[in-house]
């Protein structure tokens, strides 16, 4: 029985090229299907059970690396990429096979030879290596903070970058978002914001105030001895509550 293969790449010209090259290089291989994204690749591979799957790394839906994780132990996987510095480094350390676009030449011949010798055998356990790939930065599952605030402005939903925001201030049921240009009200409470925002980006200086650290121009003491924060591009001063004065101790 002829070996079978599946090609997954979101760019049609790239699929055409790989198919053509494989036909030249390995006429016995039958390409049973082509997939245009990661989801399709996993579905078709489950259905058609090809011996080999060629996976592009960057694909819509799910990436080639995630797709490989879902397919591991079921077929031999070859990654195809034009440029993925982290992935290539990771591949070079291990046995996972990969091809660089444009695919062709001796590199493809080597891969085909390797695949020929492996087809029919149980695929290698690539789980461990995939784990390293995932950890190596090809896919980043790191904790992420809120970087955009959504606010209703007129009829549109405006996205305000946290870098533009000077401070947040609780205003009864709402929260006031102050930028250099103006202010908007959002429904999110200050407590929710404090949990989602990067604590190094915004400091809570008062029960009702979160201030952007970069926007602080000066910290002064008023006549009553309270610490006041002056924010750039803004006239009003913000009070620091007694419990939070430690934030500015070393300044």
């Amino acid at each position, binding site marked *: 029985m002829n070996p079978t293969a599946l090609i997954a790449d*979101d*760019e*049609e*010209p*790239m699929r*055409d*090229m790989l198919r*053509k090259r494989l036909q030249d290089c390995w006429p016995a291989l039958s390409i049973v299907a082509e997939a*245009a*994204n990661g*989801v399709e690749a996993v579905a078709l591979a489950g259905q058609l059970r090809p011996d080999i799957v060629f996976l592009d790394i*960057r694909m*819509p*839906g799910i990436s080639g690396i995630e797709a490989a994780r879902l397919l591991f132990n079921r077929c031999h996987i070859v990654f195809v990429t*034009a*440029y*993925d*510095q982290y992935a290539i480094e990771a591949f070079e350390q291990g046995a996972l096979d990969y091809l660089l*676009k*444009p695919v062709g030449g001796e590199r493809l011949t080597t891969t085909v030879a390797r695949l020929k010798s492996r087809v029919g055998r149980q695929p290698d356990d690539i789980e461990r290596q995939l784990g390293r790939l995932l950890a190596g930065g090809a896919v980043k599952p790191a904790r*992420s*903070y*809120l*970087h*955009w*605030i*959504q606010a209703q402005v007129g009829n*549109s*939903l*405006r*996205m*305000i*970058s*946290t*870098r*533009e925001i000077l401070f947040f201030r609780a205003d009864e049921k709402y929260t006031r978002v102050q930028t*250099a*240009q103006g202010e908007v009200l959002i429904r999110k409470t200050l407590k929710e914001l404090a949990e989602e925002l990067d604590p190094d980006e915004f400091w809570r200086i008062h029960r009702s105030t979160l201030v952007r650290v970069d926007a602080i121009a000066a910290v002064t003491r008023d006549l009553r001895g309270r610490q006041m924060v002056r924010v750039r591009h803004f006239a009003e001063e913000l009070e620091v509550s007694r419990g939070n004065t430690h934030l500015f101790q070393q300044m």
Partner: protein
Amino acid sequence: MRMAASGAGVFGFLRELGETASSLWWQFFDWLAQVPFRQLVVTWVLALLLACTPVLLPKQALAFILISCGLKVLAGGKRKAEIEAREAAAHAGTESMERRLVEAQMAALQAQVEPHFLFNTLALIGQLIETDPPQAARIHEHLIDYLRSTLPQMRSRGGGTLGRQIALSRSYLAIMQARMKARLAVSIDVPPELESATFPPMMLQILIENSIKHGLEPKIEGGRIDIRARATGSTMEVEVRDDGIGFSRYAGDGVGLTNVRERLKLLYGARAELLIETPADGGCRALIRLPFTPDIFAKAGP
């Protein structure tokens, strides 16, 4: 009345004379403070030569030399430092602004040519050379146009126009359409009279690349991108809208958008802004609003 008027006239004339004399004296003093000693010595020699002719009396020439020498030695250094400090302070403001602007521009341009884009496009050209050489030649040309306007070393100095920026983006979008095929639809709507309008380099391109990279490429069925420019009064708006997956509120602001915002602030202060919106029907809408001076020499649209 007449007497008073002429009296005031004489008084005004005298005051003016005094002011001119004082300003001339200070100009001379500034010159003296800043002139190098070698040049001053040459002036003395010239004065001495003149003193030998009947034009100038040798006593005056000698007095000039002595006074200027004394002034130069006693007060020249201090005065010179004062003048230099004043000039430096005046320049410092604009200089640091210019430096920050140049730095921001360089960062934008360097961040732009993404290796991923470059390698994928080169791979596409390699493939097309075999299957469709005329198309390969077209994509190749688009890539050259794109690199010419994008690589910092290649970019010519001076401000860009909206027309130039649109042309660059057309090249980029043509390449992306060749790669994404039916998954990418593009429409560009820019009135011809706006093409000559001043528009900072790489801003439109950053918005378009964001739309493709974060909105449309990750969307399985792809989508469309609409670029529109319009002017109302003294404001111009350039809008990039896509119907992609929209962007995550947890995604970082990115080098690109921060850079656009920073440069707009440096170039136009509060008169320009970058707005990002999520339309009700999904996707993303980015809008640059900046001051616009109608070009009276531009041909009006038909």
